[in-house]
């Protein structure tokens, strides 16, 4: 895999999948309104070649006031997206305010969809405040840092999550900040599990 990585920015080119194109389209709309976001979870490993796909793309977004959220929701509607699990923009906002997620998908589809949440936990803010910038075919995406992604996946613990962690680790192990990863693993209390799988 040909890439340039300096710890903050990872630059590479590849043939974009339909999933990649959809993600770039969606984040393009978020960026238009200058809303801070970060993509977390399964899509991050898929972006880097993991041999699976996903039904949804998880992302955290800055907590918005109602007025700004309505602008965002309206823009998504105009650009062909709909709320899969909300009756209205106000309903969607209420869900987010109450700590729930909302799902937005291209009209006439439900898969794949974007599962949007406001950050709640320290780990959420860690990714949102210091994301990894990915430049893919000169398009910019913000994703969870690899040193956060791996222990978080181990913490989630399903077979699929462990496999995602293993894929990212195997690809980038020579480039990872192992000290930072160990510190995050300690915070999540997954040091033993990480050591067992050879991640630290």
């Amino acid at each position, binding site marked *: 895999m040909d890439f340039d990585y300096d710890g903050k920015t990872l630059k590479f080119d590849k043939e974009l*999948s339909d999933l990649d194109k959809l993600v770039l389209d969606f984040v393009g709309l978020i960026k238009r309104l200058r809303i801070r976001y970060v993509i977390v979870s399964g899509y991050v490993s898929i972006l880097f070649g993991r041999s699976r796909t996903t039904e949804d793309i998880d992302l955290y977004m800055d907590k918005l006031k109602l007025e700004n959220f309505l602008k965002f929701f309206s823009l998504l509607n105009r650009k062909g997206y709909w709320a899969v699990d909300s009756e209205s923009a106000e309903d969607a906002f209420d869900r987010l305010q109450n700590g729930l997620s909302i799902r937005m998908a291209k009209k006439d*589809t*439900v*898969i*794949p969809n974007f599962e949007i949440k406001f950050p709640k936990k320290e780990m959420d803010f860690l990714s949102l405040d210091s994301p990894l910038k990915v430049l893919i075919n000169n398009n910019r995406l913000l994703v969870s840092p690899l040193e956060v992604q791996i222990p978080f996946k181990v913490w989630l613990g399903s077979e699929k999550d462990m496999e995602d962690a293993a894929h990212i680790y*195997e690809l980038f192990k020579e480039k990872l900040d192992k000290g930072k990863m160990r510190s995050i693993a300690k915070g999540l209390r997954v040091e033993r599990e990480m050591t067992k799988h050879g991640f630290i």
Partner: protein
Amino acid sequence: MASSKRDMEERIGFIKLWANYVKNTPNSKWSRQQNLLINSVMKSASQDAKLYLRVKKLVTR
């Protein structure tokens, strides 16, 4: 339990094999192969919103 652990070890073994293939292969080549999977699944996915939400509700209970 022993069989499940062995299955997991075999799965992780494959994951490492594929990751090393991606690592040592030009981006255009591995991504083309990955896209065959991703694009075909996207094309064939059921788009029944009510079914999808019912399944999600069952899983998160």
